[in-house]
């Protein structure tokens, strides 16, 4: 079981995504680059308070082609989507304790990008989110959510 946010963990997430997408009857042929920004909120032990961990994820034809962690925001990368939110919420989603749709609806995790595509490809999006939140057995070396004071 990989530690959260390590290369091994992202490889596992990637595999989980691709396995699940393979079960879908149809997937879009489009290619997307997605940034995930996990903001240190003073609760998660995996991102220092005030810091941001940034990941790029590349989806091609519905499957995850690659992921990459960035040291800083790279404005030269043309993004299709950006997901930004507090680290403790991302942790809770990765632990299967929080629902990513709820996080988006409540505004906890902010989504930027073409919402039409997300709506039209709801089935695929749902599969991707399930893979992220439930597809990997994760270990939490610095503690597992929920953290103190976070329900």
């Amino acid at each position, binding site marked *: 079981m990989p530690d959260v946010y390590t290369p091994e963990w992202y490889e596992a997430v990637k595999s989980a995504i691709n396995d699940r997408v393979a079960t879908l009857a149809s997937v879009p042929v489009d290619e997307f680059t997605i940034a995930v920004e996990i903001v240190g909120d003073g609760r998660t032990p995996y991102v220092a308070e005030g810091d941001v961990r940034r990941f790029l994820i590349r989806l091609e034809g519905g499957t995850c082609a690659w992921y990459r962690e960035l040291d800083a925001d790279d404005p030269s990368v043309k993004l299709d989507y950006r997901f930004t939110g507090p680290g403790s919420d991302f942790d809770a989603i990765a632990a299967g304790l929080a629902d990513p749709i709820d996080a988006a609806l*409540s505004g906890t995790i902010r989504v930027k990008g073409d919402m*039409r595509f*997300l709506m039209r490809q709801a089935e695929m999006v749902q599969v991707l989110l399930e893979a992220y939140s439930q597809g990997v057995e994760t270990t939490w070396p610095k503690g597992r959510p929920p953290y103190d004071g976070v329900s």
Partner: protein
Amino acid sequence: MTLKDTYDAIIIGAGHNGLTLGAYLARSGLEVLVLERRHEEGGGLCSEEVTQPGFVHNIHANYHTFVDMAPPVADLDVRGHGVEYVRPEVQMASIYDDGTALTIHTDMDKTLASMARFSEKDAATFQRLYGEAHGFVDLLLGTLMYQPPLSVKELTKALATFGVEDRSEFLSVKLRRETINQFLNRHFENDKIKAHLAFHGAVCSYTNDVAGLAIGYPLLVGKIDNWHLCVGGSHRLAHALWRDLAQHGGVMWSDADVTDIIVEGGRAVGVKTAGGLELHARKLVASTVSVEQTLLEFVNPKEIPDELSQRVKSEVVHKDWSLFSVHMAMRTFPEYKAAEFDPDVNRAWVVNLGIDSIERLNADWKSIRAGNLVDPQPNAAVNSLYDPVDAPEGCTTGLLRQFAPFALADGGEGAWDDMGRWYGQKCIDAWRRYAPNLTDDEIIDWSVFTPHDIARKLPNMVRGDWMMGEISLANMLDQRPLPELGQYRTPIDGLYMAGSTQHPHGFITFGPGYNALQVIADDLGIEKWWSRI
């Protein structure tokens, strides 16, 4: 400056949608010409000294509710071009005949406290609904306002796939069958709170008794505290957009009354004006005026299918009520009797006077739809409370707005010319009942702007329809104004619709111009620099 013969893009109408589209295209490197029938840019962003010199009145658009929600505000740097927005601390109020009052603040705790004086249960309900709506207002805006529209079917399917129906009152598909009245009656108990929330919908053109409009209520609730005033008059926004257009090489040409859209080989290639100009477009012509003007007047009938012409004539539906306005120059601010109950009403930018039940509003709609004038219960906006420059020192402007029919049952719309002044006095008298200090001595001058005046001044607002198309479920999203026009394209290549006839609708949303831009960019392969994530 002289006009060239040919531009990349010709845009008909220099309202905020036409200017927005033009400015983005100019920033994208296109040669852009925006043609305006009137003597100045702005369309509904029209501020004039219609009473006395020094008193600036917003003849039409007064409320800017999408500031910092609409992408063009930042993309086109309207603040950098001189626009100053103020978000009044006391956004709105309702004053009731028993002397009580409800106030809506930018501080939601104060709003909830005001509601709790009428019903603690309703205040708690509103807090929950506001929290839900405010959480996903960005998603709503991104999904529903600032993108070419999805269909209701697509939205419903997506919501079902995400399984969100039970997660928010606002995501239930049953809203598609409900009126705002039904939504309010299901959730609230206090008549005055319900009346205020229904009034809020009506002021935004979401008539509370129209089936299906509950679907739009989440966004109304989510931005209930985002009403902004444009300091110095709403026209300053138009001027800022024009300035951005001009700085990027675009041209706005006024007093240019387009009479024809030139179509060659099924493609729009230019326009003719009443002044004899013939101007050519290399890439596109976009119209921001009404569907009727665009497809029935400007385009030769042989260029569009007969069926579409017939559908424009018979199926493009306009609002069944309009607005009657009284613009006032005054020496003092209103001092409401209801300030004894809630002192904040004297600082409320917009005040609903005396509508204290949904039933009262319902009765008014019934009468107005029959072409009758109702006993006025106008809403009163005092911009000078928050605008330091819209009136001479020591003086103030006032704006009364009353829901009214376009065509009067007795005499049609033409009767307004004889009735306007009389009805204006009745509106002023109604205001005085709640603010007795507004005596004749305190009112320097006033003038009226009737529904008929709206249609005469801004003919794209057919029948005084300030939303440029009925607000109803059947006329929303990709169905607005007709399914074959719902994605901003027309049957004529290179001719686009980019005005408030299109999704989302009228109001200062920037949406139609911004969304048409997305479609035009897709068609022409323009790099979408504005949508960098």
